[in-house]
């Protein structure tokens, strides 16, 4: 079901508040930005509108960034009426017609985040200032998402986050101009805990290895909270440097600690290397406290799981979306993407594609590119047909609430893409939480002019 909350009165009210705030707040950007505006920054002139795709094109997440970019290009093609339309055919809102956005042909520029907050801000700033991007989207890291979201808030541009899993993005660091479709650490913990309880029992002792940065902390906290609530004990939680490549020094003592579960709060290369070390040290075959030793990876990425090879077999984790889902939206997206590129899309590609369509749809429903109008159209928006079942873009924190997938490394993969099997689709209600628990203030939307 689609529903628009956008009203003319609401837009005027928000604009007035934002205008006052903009006058009162120090300006980060040069006044020259205000040139040529029509009540908001970078109002499209002529018959085109420019979107800014800010993805890691270099650095350790470059492959994930490349997949994001493929998805964005596909979304632009579909928005402009090309291809088979993909998820536009299954999206519950029917505002998108393949005629661009608000009749303007969609063009795009790209930036390289390098998975570094400073570089990501610089590339986003360049796309906004030099290329006139009306919206910034993308990224594969929470550090980058939080940094770029803050910049977009200051500039007065909508930020549609890419792959970012930290609670903080829509928690303590949430912004009125920022929106996240991807799930978060809390949801991973809430979805995983019951499955782990069923599979491994409630009398377990967990040892956490946690990447020493923001995302690692929130993921460890989420998994600890939900597993301890069902009876697990946490015997140790050790922070590991983000730049660590060989985890032997951290994995070697695990068996002697009295633990019988190892939770790897690692992502990307960290996950590949720590899981490889854990398997090498025989933890998958080990016994502890009279039970089989188990390993858990709270956040899975198929692209990263490929790097760990057969080490992922039988290991539980969670993911935002998987190409093997059989709902109509997922099937349409996999078909479009697969026929264009020859392989199935990743979860990063999925969330980026969906975010682009959601932005375009919000603009159509709002009848404007004004960030405040689009924000209002997205807040409280309920939709379906985008691969995760009925979804709500919650107004209070701009976080999407939808089903979460609990997955397991497949024992007998039939192809190089067939690495994870879906164990359970956890309903959205089970992973929903009170918006106030992570603190932070949305503030007011900033139209940038």
């Amino acid at each position, binding site marked *: 079901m689609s529903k628009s909350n956008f009203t003319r009165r609401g837009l005027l009210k928000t604009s007035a508040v934002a205008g006052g705030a903009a006058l009162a707040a120090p300006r980060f950007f040069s006044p020259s930005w205000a040139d040529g505006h029509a009540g908001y920054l970078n109002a499209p002139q002529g018959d085109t509108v420019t979107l800014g795709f800010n993805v890691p094109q*270099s*650095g*350790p*997440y*470059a*492959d994930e960034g490349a997949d994001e970019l493929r998805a964005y290009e596909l979304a632009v093609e579909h928005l402009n009426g090309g291809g088979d339309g993909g998820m536009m055919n299954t999206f519950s809102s029917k505002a998108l017609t393949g005629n661009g956005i608000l009749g303007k042909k969609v063009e795009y520029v790209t930036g390289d985040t390098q998975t570094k907050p400073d570089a990501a801000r610089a590339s986003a700033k360049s796309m906004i200032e030099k290329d006139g991007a009306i919206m910034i989207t993308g990224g594969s890291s929470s550090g980058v998402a939080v940094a770029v979201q803050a910049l977009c808030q200051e500039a007065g541009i909508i930020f549609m986050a890419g792959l970012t899993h930290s609670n903080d993005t829509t928690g303590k660091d949430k912004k009125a101009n920022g929106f996240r479709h991807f799930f978060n650490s809390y949801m991973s913990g809430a979805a995983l805990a019951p499955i782990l309880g069923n599979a491994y029992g409630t009398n377990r002792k967990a040892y956490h290895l946690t990447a020493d940065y923001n995302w690692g902390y929130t993921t460890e906290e989420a998994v600890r909270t939900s597993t301890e609530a069902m009876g697990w004990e946490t015997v*140790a939680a*050790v*922070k590991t*440097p983000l*730049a660590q*490549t*060989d985890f*032997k*020094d*951290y994995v*070697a*003592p695990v*068996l*002697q*600690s009295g633990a019988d579960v190892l939770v790897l709060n690692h992502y990307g*290369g960290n996950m*590949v*290397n720590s899981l*490889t*070390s854990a398997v*090498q*040290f*025989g933890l998958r*075959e*080990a*016994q502890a406290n009279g039970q089989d030793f188990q390993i858990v990876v709270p956040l899975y990425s198929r*692209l*990263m799981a*490929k*790097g*760990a*090879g*057969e*080490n992922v077999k039988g290991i539980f984790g969670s993911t935002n979306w998987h*190409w*093997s889902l059989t709902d109509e939206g997922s099937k349409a997206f*996999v*078909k479009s993407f*697969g*026929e264009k590129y020859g*392989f*199935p899309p990743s979860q990063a590609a999925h969330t980026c594609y969906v975010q682009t369509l959601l932005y375009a749809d919000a603009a159509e429903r709002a009848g404007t590119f004004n960030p405040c109008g689009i924000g209002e159209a997205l807040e409280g928006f309920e939709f379906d047909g985008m691969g995760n079942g009925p979804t709500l873009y919650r107004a209070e924190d701009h976080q999407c609430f939808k089903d979460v997938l609990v997955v397991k490394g497949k024992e007998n993969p*039939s*192809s190089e*893409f*067939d690495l994870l099997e879906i164990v359970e689709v956890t309903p959205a209600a089970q992973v929903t939480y009170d918006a106030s628990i992570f603190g932070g203030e949305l503030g007011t939307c900033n139209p940038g002019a």
Partner: protein
Amino acid sequence: MEAIVLQLLSGLDGGSAYALIALGLTLIFGTLGVVNFAHGALFMIGAFCTVTLQRILTLSHTVIDDTQKDFLGNPLKVQVPYIQDWVGESAAASIIDWSVPLAILFAIPVMLLIGIIMERGLIKHFYKRPHADQILVTFGLAIVLQEIIKYFFGANPIPAPAPDAFKGSFDFGVLLGFDPNVIIYPYWRLVYFAFAAIIIAGVFAFLQFTTFGMVVRAGMADRETVGLLGIDIDKRFTMMFGLAAVVAGLAGVMYTPINSPNYHMGMDFLVISFVVVVVGGMGSLPGAVLAGFVLGILQSFASMREVIEFLPGINQVVIYLAAIVILLTRPRGLLGKRGVMED
């Protein structure tokens, strides 16, 4: 006690990789006087020799299997390695399974060639330039090499598992009289340690017991005099650069089952390897090996949970703290010689 033995093993294991890379760095510095920041890239290229051999061994032709479907619902295209057609399924599986050890044979000529081309093509032009220039050009070369690897192999890690015979762990504790399953250590890491020891011993034996090695050592001590005796020391030093590249490459080949290769792995080792060289003493081969193991063991103990709880963050800085302490008390490093990099 068990924990100490385990961390000691872990430290020796980690130290063996540091020692191998630092050994190659010191060989180049000791002979050519060049500070080679591209040495980590040679380690990385060695690892990708394994990946390349894997890809060669698994070069395939496509067979359509109508009984299975791909992700789009079309008949599945099954990749059948050519080698399977030639030697049969089980022999092909065994050869592919042993691709990491086989890659040693593949990497030796490749790394020797790369080393010689690097030295003759670029680095020899910087012998008489300041160390800062050498660092800049070799660091630039390292970036170019890793970007080339990323272009061809992508940014994600690529798994290169050990042969099945070396998977799993060895119960080391039982050998030492501990209870079973108390001190277990992965077979492949023990293999890596033994391999590193053999390579290090081989390099020392080569320098100590061959005429070639004797000339090189003489050249390291007094290049001019060796030249005056009519010996073309430059040619021998070029060969030493090639040898250093082979040592780094083999360290990379054997490291692939420990950590899946990625284009950035050389940089991850580079800084720490330079610390190892400086702590060992610039130009000292035994110093590089000793420092590699000492710093590996220190890092292992600093990563213990009890130590981190007592001194948060110590695991991230212990190597640099140790370097500061050693250089303050022994400014030339553990086994450094007077006159090296002091002019």
